[in-house]
């Protein structure tokens, strides 16, 4: 398989000792689970009430539509509250469940004969089971799998330092991954199935090759992509494997390809074959700030504090708590936040692992950022344009193609928070585009109104012109010349009114009114 290089990318210190990832360790059930409900628009109404007893896998909120994803209880227990709770660096309405420790579950009926079932039935099961992408974006799997693609790429290339969740799954769950590959290949009607993993994942490669040797598990091509951040990003992986580039603003389906994280594939497989809703995921715990670093099988909704406490607690070097990887992860202010489907890792970084708190300096245009930018942009030019407020020019330079991978901020010798700037720039661009769409709407309505007024005026003139010949048949002398404007036609066509007739009519009207007046009843005005 000929691999194409992708532009830029950086070689990060992996912080991943050993050839194979450690086996996933399990965790005792936390006393309380916090399940954030998706924003009102993206999901159905909350299906449970406070005090109601729920079992593991029971639906807390239905999927908004056939392409959404439902929310499920992480374990059995009673719902103690449905209220806003801190989630990530913000807040969301959450269903809080006090677990009872029995952990009895309510599985959905397994669909063992999924090969014969219609695709729609399988996609609908994925939505009901709440399967979302576990690669960090948490995009509903049903929506992503809806578009078939001849090339199916299973993304096992976990390229951020410390992260070993996918690698642990590949090393210790290779059979399930390959089975899931078959299911997804059927769902996507894919003719080629590629499983990408980083060239440094020797343990995972060996486990997969052993599983491939087993009967009935063929058809999946193992591809070792170069260990270079951000090779695991969807666009870069497609470039490396197919040599094609996803068009700007487009999706992989435009290239007849689809990319799925290996963990999401397994979650989809479990939901269909075992009828298990998505209630747990593998989370990497790392960094010098915590003891017992490794890969844990964590129930969704488990507070981070519980995970850290049972792993071994904080060391005194703990300086920053990050949900996700060190390059794209989100720093959070405290550990009373739940683990979500998008939480690939919980990192407690020590002060020396962190970027130096050096003050931000002026950009010296060294171009290191442009050399490493996988989207082949010019971060230094975008920086200058955004600082001058030249949104239009920045959009022209490809600001919306920035994948926020952080490689530019990683190499920047002047310590400029570039990703933050581009994220703000993108949101400002979005606001500008909304305003422009609103303006276009207003222009359309204005033009429609102007057209309507013109049409009304023309109709009124036509109506008057049509009525005028009917009232004066006696004075049918021909209209002498073509009237200059329609309005003028009305007056010349009618016969000249003589003044006496008008006065007589008024007198008759006054007389009739006096005759009615003495009757003492005033008609309506």
């Amino acid at each position: 398989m000929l691999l194409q290089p992708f532009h830029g990318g950086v070689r990060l210190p992996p912080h991943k000792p050993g050839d194979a990832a450690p086996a996933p360790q399990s965790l005792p059930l936390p006393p309380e689970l916090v399940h954030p409900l998706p924003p009102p628009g993206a999901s159905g109404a909350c299906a449970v009430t406070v005090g109601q007893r729920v079992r593991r896998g029971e639906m807390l909120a239905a999927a908004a539509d056939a392409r959404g994803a439902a929310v499920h209880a992480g374990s059995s227990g009673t719902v103690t509250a449905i209220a806003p709770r801190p989630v990530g660096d913000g807040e969301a309405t959450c269903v809080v469940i006090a677990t009872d420790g029995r952990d009895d579950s309510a599985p959905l009926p397994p669909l063992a004969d999924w090969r014969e079932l219609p695709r729609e039935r399988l996609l609908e099961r994925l939505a009901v089971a709440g399967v979302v992408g576990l690669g960090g974006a948490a995009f509903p799997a049903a929506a992503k799998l809806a578009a078939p693609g001849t090339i199916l790429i299973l993304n096992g290339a976990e390229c951020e330092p410390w992260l070993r969740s996918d690698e642990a799954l590949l090393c210790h769950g290779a059979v399930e991954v390959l089975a899931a590959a078959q299911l997804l290949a059927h769902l996507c009607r894919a003719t080629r199935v590629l499983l990408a993993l980083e060239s440094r994942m020797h343990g995972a490669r060996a486990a997969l090759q052993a599983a491939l040797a087993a009967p009935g598990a063929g058809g999946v091509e193992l591809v070792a992509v170069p260990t270079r951040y951000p090779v695991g990003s969807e666009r870069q992986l497609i470039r490396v494997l197919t040599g094609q580039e996803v068009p700007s603003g487009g999706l992989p389906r435009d290239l007849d390809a689809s990319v799925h994280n290996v963990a999401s594939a397994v979650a989809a497989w479990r939901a269909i074959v075992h009828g298990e809703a998505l209630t747990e995921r593998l989370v990497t715990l790392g960094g010098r700030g915590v003891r017992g670093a490794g890969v844990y099988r964590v129930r969704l909704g488990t507070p981070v504090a519980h995970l850290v406490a049972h792993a071994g607690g904080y060391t005194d070097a703990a300086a920053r708590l990050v949900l996700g990887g060190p390059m794209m992860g989100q720093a959070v202010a405290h550990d009373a936040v739940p683990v979500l489907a998008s939480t690939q890792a919980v990192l407690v970084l020590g002060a020396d692992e962190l970027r130096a708190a050096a003050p931000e300096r002026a950009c010296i245009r060294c171009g290191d950022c442009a050399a490493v930018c996988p989207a082949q942009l010019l971060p230094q030019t975008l920086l200058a344009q955004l600082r001058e407020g030249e949104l239009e020019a920045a959009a022209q330079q490809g600001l919306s193609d920035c994948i926020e991978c952080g490689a530019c901020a990683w190499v920047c010798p002047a310590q400029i928070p570039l990703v933050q700037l581009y994220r703000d720039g993108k949101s400002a661009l979005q606001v500008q585009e909304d305003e422009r769409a609103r303006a276009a709407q207003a222009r359309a309505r204005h033009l429609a109104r102007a057209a309507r007024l013109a049409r009304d005026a023309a109709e009124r003139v036509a109506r008057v012109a049509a009525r005028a010949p009917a009232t004066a048949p006696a004075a049918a002398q021909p209209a002498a010349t073509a009237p200059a404007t329609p309005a003028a036609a009305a007056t010349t066509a009618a016969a000249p009114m003589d003044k006496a007739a008008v006065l007589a009519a008024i007198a008759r009207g006054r007389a009739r009114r006096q005759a009615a007046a003495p009757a003492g009843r005033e008609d309506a005005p």
Partner: protein
Amino acid sequence: MTATLLAAALLLGLVALGLGALARRAGADVDLAARIDAVLPQTQCGQCNYPGCRPYAEALARGEADIDQCPPGGDAGAHALARLLGRVPKPVNPAHGTPGPRVVALIDETTCIGCTKCIQACPVDAIVGAPKLMHTVIAAECTGCELCLPPCPVDCITLVPRAADAAAVPTRSTA
């Protein structure tokens, strides 16, 4: 003598070609007016002393208007016009009004008498109602141009800042 003439002619020919190319790139007045109209906020408010955004755009293209007469566009709008017309950017002229946050008209339904004067005045048909019946403003469509305030006999229309959720962009118009 002839060599210099030839060189001068060649040089001036190149200059003329350059100017022709620049002129074609800059475009005739008509499509320049369209490009300017695309940048204007389309509030049709008339604060620029022109009866709407399109007339102001055409005046700008003819070079009769200045780029700082559009308060709803704000300073950013003036900068965009400057960049489009190759002029020196300057902030909005306060004489035409001061740029402010986006506002939406709101009809006080207890005092509205259904006189339809505001409906006729609204440049974008954002007010729904009928004679002697209740009138109300469609918040998503209102551009905050304040043209409905003067004709209202009972002064029941007030301007309120556009709420964030009301800012949901209406579906793309088919026009």
